[in-house]
């Protein structure tokens, strides 16, 4: 008897599919349930961010950066303003740095909460998702209290922030953290340690460290592969070097190093580290004016800068080129989710369709950022 070999079937996952986290089309070659190749088709959400940026002024780019990574808009703002300040050689007041870090870390928690919750949803657990969304909602309330918007903030400006913190923000934030920390244990008991969840994620979709580096995978995905690389620690920007925090890396907790569970687990640990940073920042925050360094008209000197920052999804880099006019000559956004998605084909080969969903979810992509 010869080997039974079926024909390959092409399955289109997306553009309308519950688990593609946006509008992404995956052209999946399958043999039965086994996936042999994946061709991602991007661009359904392409909004010409880079072309648009060349036609507006430097301040007006900031609302557009919000819309790239809409789940971590503060961090998108943060990356842009840090790059701009490096280009213009501005040193912002200390209070601004603290406020930015508080906002950035709060948004990191919010973004990770959504990523973890949606990951549970991809695996089939509905309830943890709603618990996490419930807590994320409280963070969004704090953002609304601070700057008036819940999702797309336009909060950080070159040289400052748009509003000062409200009067009792510190108290509200500490109250939230005290409430939030015990919740992490509940998430763990409900989802993380759940045997079915572990079975679905451990040993699945292993990204070895060298593959991850070669594919430019960054952030929690890279750290899940065991590479201790965090822009906040290794190329500190703003005042991240003043805070004590660990960089959690994957350790093959339930399976192989670099599997889906490690990527999930690193995010869970990072939430705890963010809480740590927040507590330190809220304790030491100095007073002062937040509008002090705002330039009237932004007209950076000729030149270019590439600056990367640590967004919840990884290294968010901005390549900004100035020709001395009030509009940018070139703005390039190197988005972490773009590079993370590119590894999908290599990682998913040989796994089943259900695992592709699990791997895609563990990469935590945001299509707004991939297509820009």
């Amino acid at each position, binding site marked *: 008897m010869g080997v039974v070999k079926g024909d390959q079937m092409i399955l289109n996952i997306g553009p309308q599919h519950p688990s593609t986290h946006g509008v992404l089309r995956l052209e999946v070659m399958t043999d039965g349930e086994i996936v042999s190749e994946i061709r991602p088709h991007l661009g359904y959400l*392409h909004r010409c961010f880079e072309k648009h940026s*060349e036609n507006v002024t430097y301040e007006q780019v900031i609302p557009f950066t919000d819309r790239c990574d809409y789940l971590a808009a503060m961090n998108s703002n943060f990356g842009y303003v840090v790059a701009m300040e490096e280009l213009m050689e501005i040193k912002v007041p200390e209070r601004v740095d603290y406020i930015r870090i508080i906002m950035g870390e709060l948004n990191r928690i919010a973004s990770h909460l959504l990523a973890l919750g949606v990951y549970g949803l991809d695996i089939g657990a509905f309830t943890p998702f709603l618990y996490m969304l419930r807590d994320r909602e409280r963070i969004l309330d704090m953002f609304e209290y601070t700057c008036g918007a819940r999702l797309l903030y336009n909060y950080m400006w070159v040289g400052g922030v748009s509003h000062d913190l409200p009067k009792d923000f510190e108290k509200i934030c500490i109250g939230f953290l005290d409430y939030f920390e015990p919740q992490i244990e509940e998430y763990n008991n409900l989802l993380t340690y759940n045997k079915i969840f572990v079975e679905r994620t451990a040993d699945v979709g292993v990204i070895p460290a*060298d*593959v991850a580096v070669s594919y*430019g995978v960054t952030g929690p995905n890279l750290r899940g592969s065991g590479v201790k690389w965090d822009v906040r620690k290794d190329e500190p920007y703003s005042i991240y070097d003043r805070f004590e925090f660990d960089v959690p890396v994957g350790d093959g907790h339930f399976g192989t190093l670099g599997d889906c569970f490690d990527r999930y687990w690193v995010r869970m640990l990072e939430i705890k580290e963010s809480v740590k940073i927040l507590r330190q920042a809220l304790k030491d925050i100095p007073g002062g004016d937040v509008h002090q360094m705002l330039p009237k008209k932004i007209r950076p000197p000729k*030149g270019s800068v*590439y600056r990367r920052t640590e967004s919840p999804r990884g290294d968010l880099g901005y390549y900004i080129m100035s020709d001395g006019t009030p509009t940018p000559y*070139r703005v*390039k956004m190197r988005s972490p989710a773009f590079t993370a998605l590119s590894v999908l084909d290599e990682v998913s080969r040989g796994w089943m369709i259900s695992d592709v969903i699990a791997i895609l979810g563990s990469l935590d992509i945001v299509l707004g950022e991939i297509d820009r």
Partner: protein
Amino acid sequence: MTSAEIKAAIDSQYPGTIVEREDLADHQVELKGDQWLDMATFLKNDPNLSFDQLECLTGVDTGEDGPLETRYNLHSMEHRHKIEVVISHDRENPKVASIEQLWRIGDWFERETYDMYGIVYEGHRDMRRILCPDDWEGWPLRKDYEGQESYHGIVVPKMKEEDGWE
């Protein structure tokens, strides 16, 4: 290593490939494009340099008549140093060797730059548009780009034409 040392290392290995340019900063170096694949292999594999991470790949259009450029931001995880490599292309026939097989992320980065600037990366195994549709005309991020007037029968309005607006 500092940027000057990296430049010196490149110069000693491939003499005469560094193009002198006034407007580039310290961390940037312009290289001639004809040996780029060899040089990239050297940059990646030399134990003293070992640039194992391609941080970013940017296409730049230097103006209506100027050349196109590709800018590679390289970073070494091991030595924690970085360099930005600039390679100029002829505007009419922009092409350079692909580094897709060295840094795998180059695959999508080069496709994106091809999509936006029309720079052809020779040796790339899958040179297609990535963000724009396959049948899009023109290279959107070039400075002399003119938008299509219609796409598959859908007229692209230049101005807002709504009641009560104009």
